[in-house]
């Protein structure tokens, strides 16, 4: 699939936020909301790889992640953080992307284990994808093989700090640079790759479109897209 061109993200200053908040209390309110977001993180119950073995100890009586407001949740709809625990085989990566797109924003991805950074010890495996952040934006990496519960918790605390101070906004990149991520996904999964979630529509709906959201890869998606069925919620945004 190397024939699908790889593009790079052009780093630009983020588009200025529309100044809709003039109330001085709004800032306090935002702080409060961010604090609550940082203190209540629902993690998705999805053991994508072997690093998941250290999550039960981190959750249960000994390390007790609930102290920090972290709870496991079953479906992506309820979850805030996706822990990609270890190597991602290509088959799993598809599900991870599906799951990630189904999660409501703000959502955070933590790459646990070295395998998510650069393939880890499976660097020569034909079945595992190597660099997670090419496919979905990653907020925090916790390296190690495998990281101890303490490391997991410290990584989560780092994420909490990021959320509290408002730095944890990697999820916006997915909307803003969707073309880049989609391109990488297409290079790996083939040009017919398609998920049920309409990211472009979401980006449009929530006002997160940038000039890098759409591009040649989204065009390719549009070309090859099989309409889900006559129930067309997919998409008016593109024609507009």
């Amino acid at each position, binding site marked *: 699939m190397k024939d699908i061109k790889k593009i790079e993200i052009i780093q630009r200053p983020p588009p200025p936020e529309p100044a809709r908040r003039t109330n001085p209390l709004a800032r306090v309110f935002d702080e409060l909301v961010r604090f609550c977001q940082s203190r209540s993180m629902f993690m998705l119950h999805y053991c994508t*790889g072997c690093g*998941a073995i250290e999550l039960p*100890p981190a959750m249960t009586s000994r390390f007790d992640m609930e102290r920090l407001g972290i709870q496991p949740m*079953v479906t992506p709809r309820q979850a805030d953080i996706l822990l990609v625990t270890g190597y991602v085989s290509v088959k799993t990566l598809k599900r991870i992307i599906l799951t990630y797109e189904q999660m409501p924003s703000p959502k955070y991805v933590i790459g646990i284990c070295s395998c998510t950074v650069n393939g880890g*010890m*499976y660097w020569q495996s034909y079945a595992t994808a190597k660099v997670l952040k090419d496919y979905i934006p990653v907020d925090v990496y916790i390296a190690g093989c*495998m990281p101890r519960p303490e490391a997991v918790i410290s990584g989560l605390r780092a994420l909490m700090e990021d959320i509290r101070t408002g730095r944890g906004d990697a999820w916006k990149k997915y909307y803003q640079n969707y073309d880049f991520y989609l391109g990488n996904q297409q290079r790996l999964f083939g040009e017919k*790759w398609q998920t*049920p979630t309409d990211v472009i529509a979401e980006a449009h709906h929530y006002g997160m479109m940038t000039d890098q959201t759409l591009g040649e890869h989204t065009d390719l998606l549009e070309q090859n897209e*099989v309409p889900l069925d006559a129930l067309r919620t997919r998409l008016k945004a593109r024609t507009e």
Partner: protein
Amino acid sequence: MRPENYQAVNHPPSNEYELNFGPNHPGIEGNYAFKVKLNGDRVLEARADGGYLHRGFEKLMEGRLWIQNIALVPRICVPDPVPMEVCYALAIEELCGLEVPERAQWIRVMQLEMSRVAAHLFAFGGHAATTGMYTPMFWGIADRDLILDRFEELTGGRVYHIYNIPGGVRRDLPEGYLGRLSGLLDYLESRLPDYDNLFFTNQVFVRRARDVGTMTQAQALKWGVTGPNLRATGLALDVRRDDPYLVYGRLEFDVPTEAGGDALARNLVRRSELQQSIHILRQVIDRLPEIDGPIRCPIPNPLAWNVPAGEAYTRVESSKGELAYYVVSTGGGKPYRVHVRGPSSMHAVQVLERLAVGSRLEDIAQIMFSLDACPPEVDR
């Protein structure tokens, strides 16, 4: 390479519906999937779907040095990694004709049993969680963590130890280690009545798990079931006893069985094995101080180690059942072929599919967890 079909096709007029268990589902152990077709809550068809954890271990091992693979093998089964290392080491030792010093053999047995205890604590905790009782899971995993502490002290790693190398073990026991281990065993034994009261004799649980996923002896033998799952049908078959490796021939232990063949029986077998493992560990603690000697035999430079040509089939009883390695060497620095026969490759695919058909939606997760299937063993 589209993952699934979105194409519009009219539905067949049918009263059945499909439900996907996994890979992202708490009713499935690890990253594994199970598609079922149901009517109401009755399972009509079941289809296992694996490969989410596929890393191509067997291919990877062909591309690495013999000694490098030691770091790779424990990752095949995460909750119970020690048998993987030991089994692989045994295969190389058989190929090279290495004689493992006795002390190393005892230490290996000690680790194997510790790993079994840890895996069983994990297993029934998980099973309890599928029936909605989370307390045993919290307790079990916290207690398992104490064993991981002992592993950490011994090997430096909590989960992946990379401790059993061909020819012996990597380092000797730390000072006072056996005493601390003994204390841990005392603690675990003192916890057993709690687990019994909370879980194993809990009438609601018993009612829930009885007659779920029942296998007969004949079925179990025919389907290639091994380990605790086989023993739950009343057959006292155990690789440790039938095909003794290391010093198991010299140890005294029972092979616990149950007659039921259902989820409850499988759990009770695991519970009894927990006690047996503690019993074995106590024997090790008694005997190990008397056995002096090296902890490994001399081996050639591991980075330039050409293992003699030949093949070896070694079997080990892991916490899930019969684990076997088939290793072929052509005399090179890397294995020519390594085949891992994980016990779960039977349990998680064919046995699970067959037990699930005709069972109820409520019980699918219970069947999966009571078989204690470990998906990475299947996917490799």
